[in-house]
């Protein structure tokens, strides 16, 4: 019985969200508010369990080495809560500043080590490989990278040679976007297939149930 109820609820909510395609309506509004409310509560529990309990309480209770350093985020975490008290709310900026500092440091090194170096390395391709077709492919890749980078030059007017190459760059970008879009259509249809398959098998199950 409880399983059948689950199927009814799941199938009903699926249809409620789909009704948004027709236009805003009370059924969608119901599902939307339930969704926002339920997931907000879900993530609160999630944060409690996985962040506060597992990352703060457990290491301190077990006296794990290095747990003492948790004082740092606890301090800034509490400072964040000063926003509830308008008079000292400005102190929360310290916490924002700290998170921004962490973010800046990590993304700076991450972008260089994880993106720039490997991708530049992968672009250094010989234009002659002994095979005409793969040589041509390498040529296309190198030109694609360079002209795209030219498009993202900001400090010079895009006129003359720079202008022409950046035009080629934007054409390459459009091809990439088209490819990405075309490729994605597939994924989106797959999702709908998954959902309609679920609806159809739910209907079959419920018919069978009665």
């Amino acid at each position, binding site marked *: 019985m409880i399983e059948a109820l689950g199927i009814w609820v799941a199938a009903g909510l699926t249809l409620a969200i789909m009704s*948004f395609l027709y236009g805003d309506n009370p059924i969608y509004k*119901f599902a939307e508010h339930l969704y926002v409310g339920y997931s907000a509560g879900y993530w609160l529990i999630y944060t409690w*369990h996985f962040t506060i309990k597992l990352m703060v309480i457990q290491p301190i209770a077990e006296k794990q080495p290095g747990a003492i350093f948790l004082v740092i985020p606890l301090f800034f975490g509490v400072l964040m809560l000063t926003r509830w008290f308008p008079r000292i709310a400005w102190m929360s*900026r310290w916490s924002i500043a700290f998170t921004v*500092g962490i973010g800046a440091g*990590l993304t700076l090194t991450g972008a260089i080590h994880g993106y720039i170096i490997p*991708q530049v390395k992968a672009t250094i391709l010989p234009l002659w490989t002994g095979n005409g077709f793969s040589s041509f492919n390498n040529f296309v890749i190198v030109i694609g990278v360079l002209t795209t980078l030219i498009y993202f030059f900001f400090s010079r007017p895009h006129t003359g040679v720079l202008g022409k190459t950046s035009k080629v760059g934007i054409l390459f970008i459009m091809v990439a976007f088209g*490819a990405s879009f075309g490729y994605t*259509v597939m994924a989106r249809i797959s999702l709908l297939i998954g959902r309609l398959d679920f609806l159809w098998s739910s209907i079959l199950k419920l018919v069978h149930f009665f």
Partner: protein
Amino acid sequence: MLKKQIPLAITFITGVIIVITFFIPHPPFGRLQQDALTWYSVIFGFTMLLGVDSLVRFHYRKLRRREKGWWFSIIFYGGFLLSFITGVVSEVRFGDAFKIGSSFMYFYNTILIPLQSTMFALLAFFIASASYRAFRARNIDATFLLVTAVIVMLGRVPVGYMLWHKLPNLTSWILNVLQLGPMRGIMIGIALGTVAMSLRLILGIERTYLS
């Protein structure tokens, strides 16, 4: 001073330490990047309270003022309390609300999963309407976008193979070669922009939320 200089100093010191320790494997520096991420999560945990508080108040205001559609805010509270209470109960009973078989996970499966998947599946419809409306050969840029999209769309499904048996090969070539350069260019550009932005933040040149 306290309101502007100190935050700038905090960002500067934190950023510089994290960048330098990236190159030092020796303890205790080698682990600092990982620890910093944990610290970030902890601060995030505290801030979550502020977020939920803002959302709860938003709906409380609607209820109190009896704004249009106010009674949907009751649904919001219903949903919120359902997950919150089953979460607390499961957490107390099992010590872990995420244990398979808890009431918290039951509602997760019956409520959240269908909502999530259906919302995602709406994209199938929107991608069709967006293609219809936006893919017009207005100029040369748009034409390039349109033609590539159509080729790839066809080349990725068996029908494409039936139309022209080389179409999947052409699609593979577009994905592996033609679009690779610009994608990589965009990625390198974003990474460079990110490095420049991070530098500006650490140096205190970029300070959106401060002054």
